[in-house]
């Protein structure tokens, strides 16, 4: 069974604990050894030459406080990289003109010895369906081209209060509907690991931007996996918080009962710091939770302090249904290896079954489409956004919407409208809600018996641009790993756990860890230990590896 799965990497883990102290230097060797007998790859031949990702946020903070670097220099470093890589990656729909000015303001604060917010000088990319007052917010849709909101989303407001610099607005599938960014009304983002491949979606721009180090961290939104799947495809850490943990005010609604704002970072620590900054109750969102927000990152100790079995006592359940048919062999191998890794760290790993798992996908698509058909009604061209002039009201609506929405959005609006129609409501929407209850119950049972559940974040690694564009069902099927978590409203963390063959340097595989409601702290803690003890994997895409090594 799972515990018997052996992976050479485990050997390194043991070795590390016995012989190696973590190296502080950041080396990257582009050479990749492909183990052809398995599709799992070890990108580095020498384990000692790679280091686990360290926190960019804490590094920036340290260098600012110690006057080693100016915020302006740090911002310029990222902006330069952004300029260099953007022609290939196209992760941003808008880049702020104010980033350097904001950085100067931070430097002035430092000069005046003023207190710095926890994200001072940190460049944050914000998914373009999250409202920002000083930049256009289009939701990736032509219907909102050049639309400038009158207010900042609560999450953005909190980031600014923490000193963060909003570097720009990242590309996405129109209104979050899609898994590749190919449905964006403006451009297709490329995967930094292989620019012929998709970055995933819908938060593909945010994931690619962090992956290519165009910004330090970024915000995404996750309705059915839109943070986790692109995190997996781009080899970054992605956090989907519990529904209600982060205010949705200012997030353009796709499916209100499923939408959450999530975080991307290049390390678990950065993701945790970002999550802490945006979490908490908001009087402007009636569905936001009043629960106390723990300081997620304070629990994440440095590797030197780990015991030999830091996860002793942790009960991990591998979701059986996620490692079956339709899942790439390479992905399965990586997840099994990750399970072994967790076991090696002291946790007990068992296989659990979620019988309602396969029902989640159709239920998700009915609920999400239904809610979206309602949520997108406001884009009618009357008050804002693109209006097609007309002599008659119905054609004003029809033409504005026909012109403004892309095909994927239209399809989902039609599906949702159909599902909510009189006579079909009981058969579709109501039934899907019943499935949702079942999914919630089965997760509850599984999480009563296990501390965390693990699965792949996606059934495959990043695929080619255009590969699934004309096969929506194949694309929808790619969401099987993630949608159930949204239906249950649970938190889930995705972090890189391995590579499979593909591209020039292999393609990253993401491990999904699912926790009980409001237990992000545990996920981040486990994720951090996993990440820091993961051997032989350095998740820096070849596109920027040279400039950063």
């Amino acid at each position, binding site marked *: 069974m799972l515990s018997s799965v052996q992976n050479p990497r485990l050997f390194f883990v043991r070795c590390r604990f016995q012989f190696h102290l973590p190296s502080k230097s950041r080396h990257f060797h582009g050479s990749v050894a492909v183990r052809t007998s398995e599709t799992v790859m070890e990108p580095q031949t020498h384990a000692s030459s790679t280091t686990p990702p360290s926190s960019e946020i804490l590094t920036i903070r340290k260098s600012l406080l110690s006057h080693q670097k100016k915020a302006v220099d740090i911002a310029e470093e990222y902006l330069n990289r952004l300029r260099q890589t953007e022609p290939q990656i196209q992760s941003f729909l808008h880049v702020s003109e104010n980033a350097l000015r904001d950085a100067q303001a931070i430097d002035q604060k430092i000069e005046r010895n003023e207190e710095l917010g926890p994200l001072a000088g940190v460049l944050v990319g914000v998914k373009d369906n999250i409202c920002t007052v000083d930049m256009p917010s289009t939701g990736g849709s032509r219907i909102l081209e050049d639309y400038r909101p009158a207010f900042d989303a609560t999450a953005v407001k909190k980031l600014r209060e923490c000193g963060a610099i909003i570097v720009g607005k990242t590309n996405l599938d129109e209104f979050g509907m899609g898994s590749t960014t190919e449905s964006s009304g403006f451009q297709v983002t490329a995967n930094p690991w292989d620019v012929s491949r998709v970055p995933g979606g819908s938060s593909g721009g945010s994931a690619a931007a962090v992956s290519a180090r165009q910004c330090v961290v970024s915000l995404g939104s996750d309705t059915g996996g839109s943070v986790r799947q692109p995190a997996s495809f781009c080899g970054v850490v992605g956090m989907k918080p519990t529904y209600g943990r982060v205010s949705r005010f200012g997030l353009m609604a796709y499916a209100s009962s499923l939408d959450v704002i999530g975080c991307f970072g290049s390390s678990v620590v950065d993701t945790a710091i970002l999550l802490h900054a945006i979490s908490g109750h908001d009087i402007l969102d*009636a569905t936001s939770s009043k629960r106390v927000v723990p300081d997620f990152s304070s629990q994440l100790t440095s590797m030197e302090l780990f015991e030999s079995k830091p996860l002793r006592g942790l009960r991990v359940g591998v979701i059986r249904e996620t490692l079956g048919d339709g899942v790439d062999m390479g992905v399965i191998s990586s997840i099994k290896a990750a399970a072994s890794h967790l076991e090696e760290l002291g946790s007990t790993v068992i296989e659990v079954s979620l019988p309602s798992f396969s029902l989640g996908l159709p239920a998700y698509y009915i609920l999400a489409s239904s809610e979206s058909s309602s949520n997108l*009604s*406001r884009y009618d061209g*009357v*008050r804002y956004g693109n209006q097609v002039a007309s002599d008659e009201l119905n054609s004003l609506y029809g033409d504005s919407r026909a012109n403004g929405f892309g095909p994927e959005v239209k399809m989902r609006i039609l599906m949702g409208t159909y599902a*909510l*129609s009189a006579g079909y*409501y009981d058969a579709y929407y109501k039934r899907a809600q019943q499935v949702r209850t079942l999914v919630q119950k089965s997760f509850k049972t599984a999480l009563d018996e296990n501390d965390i559940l693990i699965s792949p974040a996606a059934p495959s690694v990043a695929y080619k641009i255009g590969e699934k564009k004309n096969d929506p069902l194949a694309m929808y099927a790619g969401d099987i790993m993630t949608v159930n978590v949204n239906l249950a409203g649970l938190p889930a963390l995705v972090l890189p756990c391995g590579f499979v063959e593909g591209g020039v340097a292999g393609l990253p595989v993401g491990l999904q860890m699912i926790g009980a409601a409001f237990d992000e702290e545990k996920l981040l803690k486990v994720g951090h230990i996993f990440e820091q003890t993961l051997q032989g994997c350095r998740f820096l895409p070849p596109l920027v590896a040279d400039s950063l090594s």
Partner: protein
Amino acid sequence: MASVLFRGIQTRPFLLYPSALLSRKNGVLFCTTKCSQSQTATQENQQTQMKVSPRTHTKKVEKILHDYEAIIGIETHVQLDTLTKAFCSCAYLYGSQPNTNVCPICMGLPGTLPVLNSKVIEFAVKVGLALNCNLSMNSKFDRKQYFYPDLPKGYQISQFDIPIATGGFIELDLPTEYGGGHRKFGITRVHMEEDAGKLLHSGNGSYSQVDLNRAGVPLLEIVSEPDIRSGLEAAEYAAEIQRLVRYLGVSNGNMQEGSLRCDVNVSVRPIGQLEYGTKVEIKNMNSFSAMNRAIDFEISRQVDLYSKGEDNQIIQETRLWEEGAQRTVTMRKKEGLADYRYFPEPDLPEVVLSEEYVDNIRASLLELPEVKRRRYERMGLSMQDVLFLTNDMNVADFFDATIERGAEVKMAANWIMSDIAAYLNNEKLSINEIKLTPQELAELISSIKGGTISGKIGKEILFELISNGGTVKALIEEKDLVQASIPTLLIFMVNIKFIK
């Protein structure tokens, strides 16, 4: 969909009413007890009202209803007087410049979310209790979806299958000049929802403008059972709803401002027929008397078609009341049922009421019109007096305070209904705005009853008290108005004789 299109047409002129004028409008507007229509729903009659004698009017309807029965149900929208809108912190001030009482939330900008104003629940529970309804301890909001430019989100937040209150009733007394009578009408449901904005159409119809001031203002929709049988009953039902919401302090109930709007469904059937006839919806009635006349017109129209054997000409449609022509005309025909694709509003948590919360509200309710009427009746007042006094809660409170201070019931009622009401009517004041206090009115009545002053002198003092205040005692002394007692008078007369 029906109500939506209507809103477009029913655009009202933008007038900046000073608030003082509004409060007067809400006050007592009728003259004396001789004004027979004062207590009825027809009190809101406007200059445009045709002079119809109550008796002949009633007779005509009675004649029609000899062979036919009208079935009437009413949907009433009551705008709640909350400080802020239902789901955002905007104030709503009637008559404000267009689009000045708006924010990103009530304008439906991308990314905004509704947060429920808890006052809306409180007011809904008050009305639910006052209408003797069962309250749903767990209710929810739903989205009602349709496209119209005055609906910013493309859906209206409303309640669908679990309204906050169901299965109640309302009791009322018909005005005596129409023959009187006590009625009890069933209330199907009461639910909370938000209002839409308004369209302002240009004079030549070439364009329309959207005013979202009203968008998001909380409404209660009160749906009656089809228990109502005539225009008069319908108008009285609406008047009682108005009285109730004013008593409860949840709405100003002003029909002209659109704070109280009634959509009426009317059908007729031959007496003895079990199934209902085809129902017709009537809109655009801006006063109770217009409701009365519109419904009676519609009943006559439908009965006329029935009696000519053309009942197939009665189709399910929405008809508009034309005040000028005094008739209903086709506005649009209904083509099947509109599909609003209701589903639970995911942005708002369920509405959960606790027993304690409801009990506290129940305990806070003041005496309601029906209870007051029965109490006044037991005091020995005529139904005409009862209806007059209970129509306005301020008048009733004044009356209650006066008799509490020892005034004789019938006399207190008479003074209030005659001279005081006449004064208020002339000066366009409410009873709270005059200087006369219940204490002094009671004093005045006692002085007259005790024979200290005559009724005539009492009247002089009354007007002095109303306009300048002061006490009865001081005024009597100041003006030396003590009525000559009989012994003095006799001596005086005897002396005269002697002199002669």
